[in-house]
């Protein structure tokens, strides 16, 4: 990693709380400073893509194609939210953007089944050398 410089910005308690909440989704992030760096870099990426989209060019060393590829997964994740809210314009296509729920994946209703087990089964399993550690 190259040389780094400490820069201070002022944040409200509410903004700090919003950032802290994201930690659950990135358990590999250690200290609070690492989390804030992640937030900064993700925001920087999105702003760079906005500027490129408006014709303002790309950061040095990154082509439009590369920038588009890197930001695409982030945009897709946002589109899932917008899709659930019905905010995707017809141009992008209609359809259900929500992830399939357990119910939607099932071939049959979700009711819990509960069949009785034959009384001899447990002994047969034990007889072939199998028991709980």
């Amino acid at each position, binding site marked *: 990693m190259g040389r780094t410089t400490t820069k201070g910005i002022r944040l409200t308690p509410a903004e700090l709380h919003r950032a802290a909440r994201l930690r659950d989704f990135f358990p590999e992030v250690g200290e609070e400073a690492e989390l804030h760096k992640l937030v900064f870099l993700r925001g920087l990426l999105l702003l760079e893509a906005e500027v490129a989209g408006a014709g303002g060019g790309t950061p040095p060393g990154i082509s439009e194609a590369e920038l588009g590829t890197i930001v695409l997964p982030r945009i897709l994740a946002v589109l899932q939210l917008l899709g659930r809210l019905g905010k995707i314009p017809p141009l992008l296509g209609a359809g259900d953007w929500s992830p399939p729920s357990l119910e939607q994946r099932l071939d049959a209703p979700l009711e819990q089944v509960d*069949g009785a087990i034959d009384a001899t089964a447990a002994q047969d399993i034990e007889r*072939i050398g199998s028991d709980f*550690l």
Partner: protein
Amino acid sequence: MARTTIVHELIAAADEGRSPQFAIRNTVRLGKLTPLVVGLDNGNDAVKMAVLQPNGVLITLRIPTAYREAAVIRGGDGEVSYTINGTTFWIGEVALRHDGDALPIGPTRQRLIDSRLRSLIAASIGELLVQAGYAPGEHTIVLGFSIPNNEIVPLRGDEGEDRLGVDPETRAVLETHVKGATWSITRTDANGIAQAWSIHIAAVLPQAQTAGTVICTTKAPNGATVTDIEEMDVIDIGGGDLQHTQVKISPYQMINWRLGDGTIRVARGLGERFAPRLALNDVAAQQVLITRRMLVSGKWRDSSPAVRDVLNSQGQAIIAAVLDVLRQSKRFVVITGGGAILLHDLLIARLEAEAKRRGEDYELINHDIASMLNAIGALFAVIFRAAGKKS
């Protein structure tokens, strides 16, 4: 073979193009806990797993035993990755696509001390729960864990009685590294969306790999023995091992022999054909056998002709090793394992030459079921054994 066994539902479901479904609860009662049951076959070439949804639909998953620490992908779609203890890694086919390592084969006591295998097992269970539609978060699991047949050994019980049990070294490594473990996993999908999973292994039920096949072919889903077969031979053509097990049904008894290497001998034959131009490790070569294609100079190539050639040579050698078992007429023969799918046509030709009748003299487990039977049997073994435990 009786029509109401577990394997008959599996075959019927495959023929009808639907998911198999059983009127069996997906959890068991162990003391004060009601953990979710997972069956896992810790194969040398792949981890195979099974779990029930709440409505009894069976979900299975096979993940090749390949592991690679994940790199940052600069362009294109991301890959599904997992993070455990700060290390982000790929598994299975994703790892193979990125020249991942085939993890060492061997007995359980050697394999489980490799932290990469433990991470692969943890991530694989997480992936199984994802595929089965379970929500991220905390899950308590009781794990039916298939081990090599020769790790179930004669022991002396507390009252001096002879019984079968888990080899002490295998027991020790399972108690150290699996039983009681809590694995915190972050799964990041191809779109970069992360989910946190915490999987706690409350209990482990080790059993001989072939026992899973015996359970599925002789028992109904409620655990009743429903077959009219008194004695059978099970030929399990696995990735690492070729196993022959003689089984008596009433009462249950199993005697096992390892006859040699499984489909790995075919895979290595394939690898030797393409060396040194292509360096295929054992797991990658096993995948080529299944998929019949390989990545060469950036393009997918059909490898069917090469696979056919090595099957005709090395595959015939596997059949020769079990010919005596196929020929005998005293016991019903069940042929299973991933190799049963791979060598299906050769096996059918040999059995027809021996005038054997399918359904009467033998059953050749086909579809994709053959490689999953041991894991499915491990799942049912937990359900059956737990039913006999006092709360």
